[in-house]
């Protein structure tokens, strides 16, 4: 005999299964709202940098606005990507494949974030940045 009530047994097992909650949807909503501002800003930042010579690109991304917009867009964007991809994975994959895909999406997202943070930091610290700022 089970002492647990049917309601208790079903609690937390929404349509999306165990571990699912409205927290995921809320997280996507918050990152979407941030990206509503960041996406146009990032497109404009990159569009004005493409075509510049190397020194100018380094100097440009050393400036606060382009650097902060680029960093924010990619950090928030990849976070949004990881969580959004999770829904796709849950829909199309099961068992070990699902777990592997979830892990890979995290690794990929964080690798992109690390690459951008590294690139921005190195450009800011380079001599080319100092020349234009001073």
């Amino acid at each position, binding site marked *: 005999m089970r002492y647990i009530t049917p309601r208790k047994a079903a609690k937390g097992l929404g349509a999306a299964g165990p571990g699912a909650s409205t927290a995921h949807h809320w997280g996507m*909503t918050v990152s*979407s*709202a941030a*990206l*509503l501002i960041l*996406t146009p800003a990032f*497109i*404009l930042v*990159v*569009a004005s940098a*493409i*075509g510049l010579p*190397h020194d100018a*690109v*380094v100097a440009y*991304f050393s400036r606060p606005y382009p650097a902060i917009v*680029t960093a924010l867009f*990619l950090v928030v*964007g990849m976070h949004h*990507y990881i969580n*959004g*991809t999770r829904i*796709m994975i849950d829909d199309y994959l099961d068992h070990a494949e699902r777990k592997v895909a979830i892990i890979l999406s995290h690794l990929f997202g964080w690798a*992109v974030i690390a*690459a*951008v943070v*590294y*690139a*921005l930091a*190195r*450009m800011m610290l*380079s001599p080319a940045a100092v020349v234009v700022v001073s």
Partner: protein
Amino acid sequence: MGDIPRGNRPLSPHLSVYRLPIAAITSIMTRITGQALVAGLLLVVWWLVAAATGPRAFATADWVLRSWIGYLVLLGSVWALWYHFLAGIRHFFYDARLLMTKPEARQASWVLIWGSVGLTLLTLLLFVI
């Protein structure tokens, strides 16, 4: 099972022969664009890392980025980004329980399609100027 009279009763729509309504197509496109726009993002990230690395690495990345295939990837990704952007706005409406009727869902779908094309052309215009 063989003795069940099947006759000419209508069957429930079989997914492989079911013509997806425009709202369903624009919904699945949100996923596809979300994945596809990463191609352009990777190109830009590679370009940024190359710029941080040095002039020689930058020359290679910049050459690829500004080749016709690079511009094609960027243009496609910008469209995917704008499409995903507008689809995200539609989700805000859905969460507020708006645009839920069939005619509204159809109209919103066309706004997504033409809006994303319009915003892409606008981006292209800004880039060229």
